[in-house]
């Protein structure tokens, strides 16, 4: 792996919801589901994004600030600078998987679901968001053959409440070989303790402030307060972003 930038061209962008786009590039990137890239726009900045597709390279970008906004402005043919793939992704276990995503946490679960289905696995996807309008990739997961359960905080789609609630119901009622999740820190902390309660192997993709993206600067450490199972000094960019337990 070499951590320098290369350029890709935007092939097309698709609007997924009121503040999210799907960005498809003109080339592939050999990567595992769960790995990420650093995307650079000269003069704007550089930010981490999950690899949402690798053949061709795709990113899912929520407009939350200056950098993501600049990505939203890109047109087909425009250039984006990419460093990666970085970090370590998911690795599938057994026959039945439950994939839980909060917000743009759906992004790395999309290639993971495709891989799991291609290996003949049973894939249950649980997506959560504040409201129906914020849910991402629901139709896509269903179309490829995943069982889908939704949770929204305002009850506008699926069950009212958090995605952890629907995950717990499934863990209680079905035979599942592994839990895979990506989303906000609070959600992952809750899922980690849930998985331990029900004694399930889990793989969680953590977020942290990424600066070097190369395991040197220490900025992206995820503390054991997030999940006591994390080893001391665990770096999201280098050891993760996916933490596998056991």
């Amino acid at each position, binding site marked *: 792996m070499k951590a320098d930038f290369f350029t890709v061209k935007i092939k097309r962008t698709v609007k997924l919801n009121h503040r999210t786009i799907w960005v498809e590039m003109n080339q592939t990137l050999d990567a595992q589901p769960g790995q990420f890239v650093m995307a650079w726009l000269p003069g704007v900045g550089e930010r981490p994004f999950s690899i949402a597709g690798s053949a061709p390279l795709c990113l899912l970008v929520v407009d939350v600030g200056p950098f993501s906004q600049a990505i939203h402005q890109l047109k087909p043919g425009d*250039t984006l600078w990419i460093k990666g793939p970085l970090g370590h992704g998911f690795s599938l276990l057994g026959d039945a998987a439950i994939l839980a995503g909060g917000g743009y946490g759906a992004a790395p679960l999309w290639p993971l679901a495709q891989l799991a289905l291609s290996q003949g696995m049973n894939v249950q996807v649980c997506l959560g968001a504040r409201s129906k309008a914020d849910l991402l990739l629901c139709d896509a997961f269903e179309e490829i053959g995943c069982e889908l359960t939704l949770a929204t905080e305002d009850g506008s789609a699926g069950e009212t409440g958090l995605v952890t609630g629907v995950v717990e119901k499934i863990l209680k009622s079905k035979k599942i070989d592994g839990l895979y999740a990506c989303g906000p820190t609070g959600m992952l902390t809750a899922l980690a303790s849930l998985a331990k309660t029900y004694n399930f192997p889990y793989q969680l993709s953590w977020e942290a402030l990424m600066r070097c993206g*190369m395991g*040197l*600067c220490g900025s992206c450490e995820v503390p054991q307060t997030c999940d006591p199972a994390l080893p*001391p000094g665990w770096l999201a960019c280098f050891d993760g972003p996916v933490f596998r337990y056991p």
Partner: protein
Amino acid sequence: MSKDPDLSINIGKLKLHNPLVLASGVLGTSASLLYRAARSGAGAVTAKSCGPEARAGHPNPVMVEWEGGLLNAIGLTNPGAKEEVALLKETKRQLAATGIPLFASIFAGTPEEFGLVAGIIAEADPDLIEVNISCPNVRGDFGTPFAADEHSAALVTRAVKEAVGITPIAVKLAPNVPNIGRIAAAVVNAGADAITAINTMPGMVIDAEACQPVLTNRTGGISGPALKPIALRCVAEIAKTVDVPIIGTGGVITGMDAIEMILAGAKAVGVGSAYWYRGPEAFRLIIEEMKAFMIDHDIQSLEDIRGKAVRR
């Protein structure tokens, strides 16, 4: 040969079970990361440099790899001296059972401020305080590095020495000076107990497609393989001029690199970028490779080869 070679070394009264020292700024931002580096085989660990006030550092991109090494401009991100004391105390607590020494690292804008920061940091009772007078990435904020001028280097050294009492200090030098031996002599005369050489070398990586430097700070510090020959020469120069322990730092990725550093005259060997090139097992791998070389060449102790390549 059956006897395991002896890799232990002393820096003054400090005993290190092996000569590898985690370089400042790499994984040194929390107690748990320093503990991790210690547990992964380092002989001593250095915390990230801290200054008088908290600093966020530069905006991304702050780091990039190029053909010969790495280039970074993190921008001395740190929580400020007061917070750093708590971090160092917690690190000491975690390291206590391992016996692995903890080095603090400080920077500041004036000799007086260096003294102030050193005094605060000394409260945490680190085993050594490294005085970073050579960071190339904050020129706009702190002017020309003190490492570029023997008089200011000596002033800083004296101010720190006075502030810290008995805690040993190492002064960290920059490679981009006309005569590094002269700077080394000046800081040793001013009371430095050891010298760390070298910090990164200023450099720039340009992306032609973007038609601009990659790092937001435009320039950065070169580390990794490209730095090794520069570091070896600096260490040899310093070893020729002064008699204090040298923590030879720059481009040590393998055990052979570490042996070369000792052959140039270093007592200890700083390791930073190797974490990227070799992964989390970097320290253990380098130690194993050093041992293998020593066994192969019938070398019992590092003292037997220190400076051997440059002695005339």
